[in-house]
């Protein structure tokens, strides 16, 4: 009887999960590899525990011209993080899908100056994002266009 109850809970949960999958699928359009308009990096966005996170997976110039070593997050205001490699660094954090092609409540980190900004992401089309980083109010911000990247098709 006890086993039956637990199984019912699991199956109920699965049913709930399935019924929510439409909204989840919409939000999951953010998942993938994206390139900012300056083409200096590639950012891979994943979903972890219901929120979306993006990390740097590729750098056009991976080597620091001064140290001649792989670039680290040298501008991070936290001393303990200055030696963390930029490749793999999570620069997009905590995005929640709000519906209508918009993810909000997250932050974007700019490794060039060590600043973290509020951020909202809008899906312009399936392969284009408008990413706006801002300070407090959306007025004080800047929008960049990111394009989706995919694995090369085999010919």
């Amino acid at each position: 009887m006890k086993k039956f109850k637990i199984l019912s809970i699991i199956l109920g949960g699965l049913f709930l999960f399935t019924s929510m999958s439409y909204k989840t699928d919409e939000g999951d359009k953010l998942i993938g590899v994206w390139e900012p308009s300056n083409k200096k990096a590639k950012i891979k966005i994943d979903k972890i525990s219901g929120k979306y996170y993006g990390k740097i997976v590729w750098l056009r110039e991976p080597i620091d011209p001064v140290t001649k070593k792989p670039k680290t997050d040298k501008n991070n205001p936290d001393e303990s993080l200055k030696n963390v490699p930029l490749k793999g660094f999570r620069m997009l954090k905590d995005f929640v899908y709000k519906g209508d092609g918009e993810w909000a409540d997250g932050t974007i980190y700019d490794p060039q100056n060590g600043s973290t900004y509020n951020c909202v992401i809008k899906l312009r089309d399936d392969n284009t994002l408008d990413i706006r980083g801002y300070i407090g109010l959306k007025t004080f911000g800047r929008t960049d266009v990111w394009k989706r990247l995919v694995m090369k098709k085999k010919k």
Partner: protein
Amino acid sequence: MNLKALMFSLFLLPLVTVAQEEEEEDYSMYDDLEYADESSTTFVSPKIIGLSPNRFINVAWDVQSPYTMNASEINDYAPDASWTTNESSNVSYTGGLRLNANIPVVSRNNIVWQMGANYMNTNFSIDEADPSNDPILSELNRHSLSTGGLFTTVFKPINDKQFLIFQGQADYNGNYTFSDFHSLGLTKYSAAVLWGKSPHDRLQWAIGASRTYRVGELNYVPIVMYNWTSKREKWGTEILFPARAHGKYWVNKSSLIMFGYELEGGSYHLSGLSNNGNSFELRRGEVRPRIEWNRKLVGFFWLNAQLGARINYGFAYDELENGKEFFRGFVGDDEIKAFSSLGTSLYGLVGISFVSL
């Protein structure tokens, strides 16, 4: 499959898989990707690495040490005429409030358009300013000089290296008060246009031309911009010649020292000396060699402190017939109504800004 195994496969296995991916990800797989549809266009950024903080909102107080101010009699003088002192006094206090707001209207990678407003006030406390004997000094002593301005800046990238900058400004200058405004017809218009290049992330330069009141009277001058940051992102320059030129040194990411100069000035309507519909205008221009310290306070709020000298460049008076502006340039012979000279003084400025880096 027993119940524990079922729960593990449903809930825990995905988490373990994510954790393994985090640790074992092979980044080389991202070397060779292609666009899902098409590439975005790359546009040059309005900023370079290591540029001083861009001030959205700034509140500051400016103050000068005492100095002597002399003025000639009001008359008609050739621009190069010699003159004798008719009024003279110690100026015990010169200073005032400065407010500046610079708000992005459109800020995208293909265009940045900002609108702004500024207000600047200069109070003079002149020790000996008798209205019957010292008409010029007493007029300056009567009301402070104010500047209220609106400006707009457009940064338009042409491609990934080249850009254009347009700037326009309308300034309402004079010794007006909020209950006694002058004619809006006395508004002064300035503009600048620049074309430039940013060869890499740490350098941008541009050339252009401007219509300006920087040294008091209307002028048309070429401009050169040269913003550069060293490889180590410590040293650099921020130059918009002739308006200002600074060297800079980033002590750390929260502290920036700049050293150089700025030209500051404008043309101010003086109501008490303006008669018959004419505008009696002070053409004020000064050079401010200085050292400047920018320090992060908290978040995006920064302190700005300047210490330097205020060196007089021009402090002469013109009478604009019916308020109509004219262009004398460096060689024109339009008459000057009065001359003044100011002793050099020390100055200090302290401000707080809401910035973007």
